[in-house]
Each structure stands twice: as C-alpha cells, then as structure tokens.
C-alpha cells in the first residue's frame, strides 16, 4: 500500500516537473509568452528567431532545469540531514555549509574589487578586470569560492566535533561553525560595503545566471548523491530506530555516517555554489513528502529530491513572473511557499487529531 502510494507520488512529482519545465520556459522578462511560435514559424524574421532561440535554449531552459536540479539537491540533502540527525528541524545547512559558502563569497567579492585591491593590480594591465578577463581567479570565481567554503566549513565542523560518533557534538559544532563563519563574513562585508548588494543576492538565492555548465554540473552531482545516498539509506532506516538498534543491526556506524556527511556536503555545496542560499527547500521538502506518504528512507530520499526540485522550480518561475521584468529573490518565495504549506498541513493535522 505504502509502496504504491510512494510510486504514485513519485510519478506525480515527475509529471509536475515536466509540466513545470514547459511553464518555466514560457515565462520570462515579458511575463507569460510562447517563444515556440517565433521559433517554429518559418515566416518569422531571422533576427527575431535568433533572439527567441537564444532566450529559449541559452537562458530559460538551463535556468528552469537548473532550478529543478538545485531544488533536487537541497531536497535530497535535507532528507539526508533529517535522517542522519534524527531531527525534524535539520536542514542541509546544518553543518555550517551555508555560512562557509557565504564567507567564501564575501572574501571573493572583497578581494576582487576592493579599492586599490592587490588583486586588481596582480591581474595586470591597468584596467585590471575586463569583461573578457581570463585570469584563473575569475574562472574559479564566486562559484568555486562558495563550493570550497561550504565543503571546508563541513570539514571544520567534523574536526571540531572530533569525529562523527556523537550526534549532539556534531550538531553543536555545526552551530558554532555556522555562527563564527557567519560573523566573519559580516566582518568582511563591513569592510567592503560595495559588495553588500552582491552578497544580498547570494544570501537570498538566485537562479538568474544558471547556464548549461552549471545545470549539467548540478545534475551530475545529483545523480552521484542520489546513488550514494540510496546505498547508505539502510543506515538512516537503522538510525530511525535509535542508535543502539542501528549498532545491533551490525551497521558500521562511523564510516557510514562519515560517508553520508560527505554526500550531504557535496550536494549542498553544489547547489549553494550555483544558486546561493535558497532557504527552506531542504527543510520543507522531506516534511511535505512525509506528510503525504510514510515510507522507508530510500524512497524518502528520492521523493524529497523530486519534491525539492518541483518546489524550487515553481518558486523560480513565480519569482520571474510576478513582477516581470524585475525579479523577486527566489529564496523569499521558497520560504513563503514552503512555510505556508507546512503551516497549513500542521493546522489541518491538529484539527484532524483534535
């Protein structure tokens, strides 16, 4: 019964995703509009066709798919974190990856363009940065800095908690790392206020510049994380019965936990690096799934992932649509949508229960 429910939900989510890709590529700076018409119409002016093609294939399609991939990564990471910590409040950013990524980005922003910055002169040739710059640092760029920051923060958490044996110690270390790195990035920002606005964009999340490279990268990481998460799902099932039970089942707790944290860090880092700190998808997606079906972790991981993808894609499309040609920060919408839905579920649950 549960199995059937789960597979139905899976198919529904996949269908929704497909439907939403269709919607996503039809919503842009001019609101809702069908670009296929100028694309397929042989009589359209070549200039118009080229523009439509560019906007369709180079901007909207990778952006929409990228939003799905980022959401899927966050949903997966959220389910992993909640299972690993046996805590419904856990989210993908719990081990400090969010503040690590922020610090990476803040440092990068400060170093790249500070007045009379060492780097600008290091990059050579008077003007320093040009649009066509090819310096290694530019290549590595903010994406690399965010990813490195996220992963390093998790490593730091692991070091501080001296291993993965104690869940509480791990959680505390994660909170400490989060607070300290967060404070550091605010300090960096205070000294280079010009980067404040760019930083705000990062903190609220944005899929505006997700291209094909970013999209494939995220999808690749997603595949990897899903498979390894699936292989480790046994541990999560065991853990949900309590640590002692998990141990008595003969599961190698420490190495499996470490592997799970690695998957968690990788998935979160990849999503954060490309799209910034998108709030709440990771927290909400597993809850929404659990409120719909009760199932084992291997399915929960997959379903949370699909749910996260659909959630973020929906939020991104709305963010582009609501005040076009301006954009809302997508993180704001995910928080409002996800939070609203969860509240509604809780309210209803209470009514049914009472």
């Amino acid at each position, binding site marked *: 019964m549960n199995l059937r429910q789960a597979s139905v939900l899976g198919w529904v989510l996949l269908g929704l995703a497909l439907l939403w890709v269709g919607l996503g590529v039809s919503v842009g700076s001019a609101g809702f509009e069908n670009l296929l018409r100028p694309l397929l119409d042989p009589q359209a002016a070549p200039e118009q066709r*080229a523009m439509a093609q560019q906007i369709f294939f180079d*901007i909207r399609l990778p952006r929409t798919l990228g939003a799905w991939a980022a959401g899927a990564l966050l949903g997966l990471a959220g389910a992993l974190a909640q299972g690993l910590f046996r805590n419904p409040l856990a989210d993908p950013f719990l081990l400090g990856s969010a503040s690590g990524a922020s610090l990476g980005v803040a440092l990068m922003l400060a170093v790249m*363009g500070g007045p009379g910055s060492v780097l600008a002169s290091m990059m050579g040739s008077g003007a320093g*940065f040009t*649009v066509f*710059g090819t310096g290694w640092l530019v290549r590595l760029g903010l994406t690399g800095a965010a990813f490195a920051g996220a992963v390093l923060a998790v490593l730091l958490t692991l070091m501080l908690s001296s291993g993965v044996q104690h869940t509480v110690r791990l959680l505390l270390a994660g909170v400490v790392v989060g607070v300290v790195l967060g404070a550091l990035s605010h300090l960096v920002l*205070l000294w280079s206020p010009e980067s404040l*606005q760019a930083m705000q964009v990062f903190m609220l999340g944005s899929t505006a510049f997700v291209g094909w490279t970013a999209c494939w990268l995220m999808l690749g990481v997603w595949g990897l994380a899903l498979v390894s998460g699936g292989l480790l799902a046994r541990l999560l099932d065991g853990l949900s019965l309590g640590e002692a039970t998990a141990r008595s089942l003969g599961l190698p707790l420490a190495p499996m936990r470490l592997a799970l944290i690695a998957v968690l860090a990788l998935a979160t880092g990849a999503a954060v690096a490309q799209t910034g700190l998108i709030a709440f998808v990771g927290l909400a997606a597993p809850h929404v799934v659990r409120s719909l079906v009760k199932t084992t972790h291997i399915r929960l991981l997959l379903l949370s992932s699909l749910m996260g993808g659909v959630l973020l894609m929906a939020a991104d499309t709305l963010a582009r649509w609501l005040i*076009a*040609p301006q954009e809302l920060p997508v993180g704001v919408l995910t928080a409002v949508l996800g939070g609203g839905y969860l509240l509604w579920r809780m309210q209803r649950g209470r009514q049914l229960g009472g």
Partner: protein
Amino acid sequence: MRWAGFVAMKVWQALVRIRLSVSTCMAALMVGWLAGTALAAPIQVTDDRGVVVTLAQPPQRIVSLLPSLTETVCDLGHCVRLVGVDRYSTYPASVTQLPQVGGGLDPNIEAIVALKPDLVLMATSSRSAQRLESLGVKIMALEPRSHADVQRVLLKLGQVLVVPNAQFIWRNIDLATTAAAQSLPKGLGATRVYFEVNSGPYGAGESSFIGETLTRLGVKNILPASLGPFPKVNPEFVVRANPDLIMVGQRSADGMAQRPGWSGMRAIREQRVCVFTTAESDVLVRPGPRMAEGARLMARCLASKARGATP
C-alpha cells in the same frame, strides 16, 4: 531668504547673458554675499528629516558620515573645517588624512563625540542620529539621491557654512554637466545604454542618479523609470533589449560574456562595453558635486565606444 537667492540667480543669469567681466563677477559675488549675511545669525535650516536645525554661528568643527556630503563641504571651500569623516569618504585626497569615525551605518559614537564637533552631517538612514543628539551633538541629516538633490544639499550646506557663492558653485557644476552633454558627437542620441550597478543583476534605471546623468547626456536607458531606481532585472530582459552599449563597474564586469545567452548580445560581441574603475564608479554613483565629472566619464565612454562615434 528664498527670494534673495532667487534674485541672486536672476542677476547672475542676466550677467552671464551680457558676457561678464571680472568686475561684474565681483558684483555677483557681492549680491550673493549680501544674501548670505541676511540670514547669518542665527542659521536655521530644515534638514531631510524635517527637523529645523538651528546654529548660533557657522560650524567650525564638522564630522561628515557620508562621502557625498564630505565632497560637498570641500567643494564649498570649507574642507579645513572637517575634523572627521566616515571610512568611505575618499575624496578629496586631503580627507583621507582625517580621523575616521567608522561607517555611515555603523559610526563610532564615542570617536565622534571625542572630536567635539559642532555639526555632524549624515544620511537620514543612519540610526545614530538620536544617540548623538541625546549626547548633545548637533545633527544635520541630508540624503542626496538625484541631480536636484545635489543642488538642494549644496545650497543648504552653503547656507549653513555661510558660503556666499554657493549658487555660483552650483551653476558651475550644472553648466559643466551640460557642457559634457554638448561635447558628445551628434547622432548618439539613439544609443541605448544598459548601466549595470551590480551583478545581481541590478541596473541603473532612469530615475536613479546615474540614469539622470544618462538622460542629460541625451542617450536612452533600457530600464524605464517605471522599474524604479535600481531594479533587479531578469537577465533575459537585457538580452532582449539588446543595448548598444554597456557600462559597468570593474567589480561586476567579470564573466559578463560568460553569462548564459549574453555572448550573443550586440554590445558584447562588438566589445562596446565600458568598464569603470572603482574610483570612477565612486564618481558616477555619488550624488555630489562631482556630478559633472561623472557626466564627463560617461561622455568619454560614449564617444569612444558607442556605435556611430568616431573613436
């Protein structure tokens, strides 16, 4: 006092019309000076919070917490009266020697009080005003945002500092801005410009300070005033608008061509992109007396990079 300034301006305009000589210039200054002394004691000015600031005499020890206000005080010829500035005030070079009292939004109250200022200039958005006032420090909050604000703030500070020729200084700035626009080659009027403030991407709309300068230069902005001063636009909007020229600050210039779909844009394909250094960006974005210099920077960019201009 309004009419006095008005009369001074009218007289000045008349004098400009009849090709002024040195003596007529002196006469204009006299009129301005008379207008200045007429409101000398005590000085009463309404600041941007709507608070009437009363000063018994012109301030001698000023702390400025906003770069554009620092520049305005210096442009009025009273740089020496500044005793402290915020950490972002970098122009003119002499102010970098002054004690720094933190930033506009996070000023060091203690450091400000220790400087014993008789006037602190700050933005209205700063939360420190109340704290400083309760410590007995005179505050004047001014928030220049537009070309008109530059004039208003300059004249207000001129009144406070009893600068008789503030009106004249403003006229010079205004004329120099017009001159920058007139220096442009003909036929650039159809140029459509995208000015990126930040890689969000936030652009400068028509109603922003930068947008006003662009309008005065007679070129078109792809971001209409209806979008507000600094809209965060969908990158697709820029691709679709396909501007003839892109202006961008150094810090957000990197990787612009690598953004999805942007490499095909005409401006990027034909390398019609002006990258302003950080110091230049400061001039462009600060609504202060260097407004004309900002207009010249943009005019130089247009003259060298715009389609139809002969480099």
